[in-house]
């Protein structure tokens, strides 16, 4: 079943030009499922980088604007989109030319996978 999901994610990722990878991690950045191409930058899928997102959204919730759903970081070479799927974090790594709207539209396709993977984390 894991292989089927990975295959599905590969198909999704291959349809968006410039998308290098999709990772499902817990709040500490430990990967549950990872689909990345060789071009994906190593630092963007490290636990330290991903766990910073959780720290940021925890603090961000104090701003009084509600729960953080998505965080988009645009760098000079890459774009990182992180979605808060409590207790999981979904991270998309893309290059600078990638269409972010297409990545954000993937949320509906990602949701069922995220909700079943979330059971893994909550059961532990």
């Amino acid at each position, binding site marked *: 079943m894991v292989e089927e999901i990975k295959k599905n994610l590969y198909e999704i990722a291959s349809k968006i030009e410039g998308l290098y990878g999709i990772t499902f991690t817990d709040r500490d950045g430990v990967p549950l499922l990872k689909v990345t191409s060789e071009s994906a930058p190593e630092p963007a899928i490290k636990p330290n980088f991903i766990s910073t997102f959780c720290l940021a959204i925890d*603090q961000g919730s104090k701003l009084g604007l509600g729960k953080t759903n998505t965080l988009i970081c645009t760098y000079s070479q890459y774009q990182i989109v992180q979605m808060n799927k409590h207790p999981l974090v979904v991270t998309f790594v893309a290059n600078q030319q990638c269409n972010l709207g297409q990545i954000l539209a993937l949320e509906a*396709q990602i949701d069922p996978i995220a909700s079943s993977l979330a059971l*893994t984390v909550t059961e532990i």
Partner: protein
Amino acid sequence: MGCCWSLLCKDDNSSQNGEPNERTHLLVDPISNNIHIQRVSSENLLSRNSNDAPKKTDEQSALTRILQETATNVIDVAAIDSHNLQQQEYIERVKMYNIKINQVLAGNKGALANSLKSCLLEDVPQPEKILSGDLLNREDRHLMTSSLLAAVSAINDIRVDHKEDLVVPFGLGLNS
């Protein structure tokens, strides 16, 4: 103002110590009331440390409460401590997740299978079978074309049968 306080004191005293007189202190009761409220809030602490001075524990618990509230409401970037996972813990967790994922996904296989469709159009494995199927009957074809032509002519014949005035003046018509 003084009048108000004396009235309040009167009520309190009459309920606790009997009748007050004109020498009853005005400020005693509000202070003792405050202390009483704090004691109630930290009842557990007091029951555990009955020998400690109650005022001190009250102050400390109030202080810790204020500190906690401040910490939850204030964004202090310098105080954010990033928790780095140990390598060993990381590896253990990855292993644990791998095992758990297989178990959880096996249970939810049916629910997840439907949502994994990435294409709207489905692949046809042997197209030649469908393409080499029997042709339509001449009668069926004739029925389809004739009914379609009838429908088209019916749609073309739809017209508005104009009988009354399209613009009716409201109110004016009734008066006249």
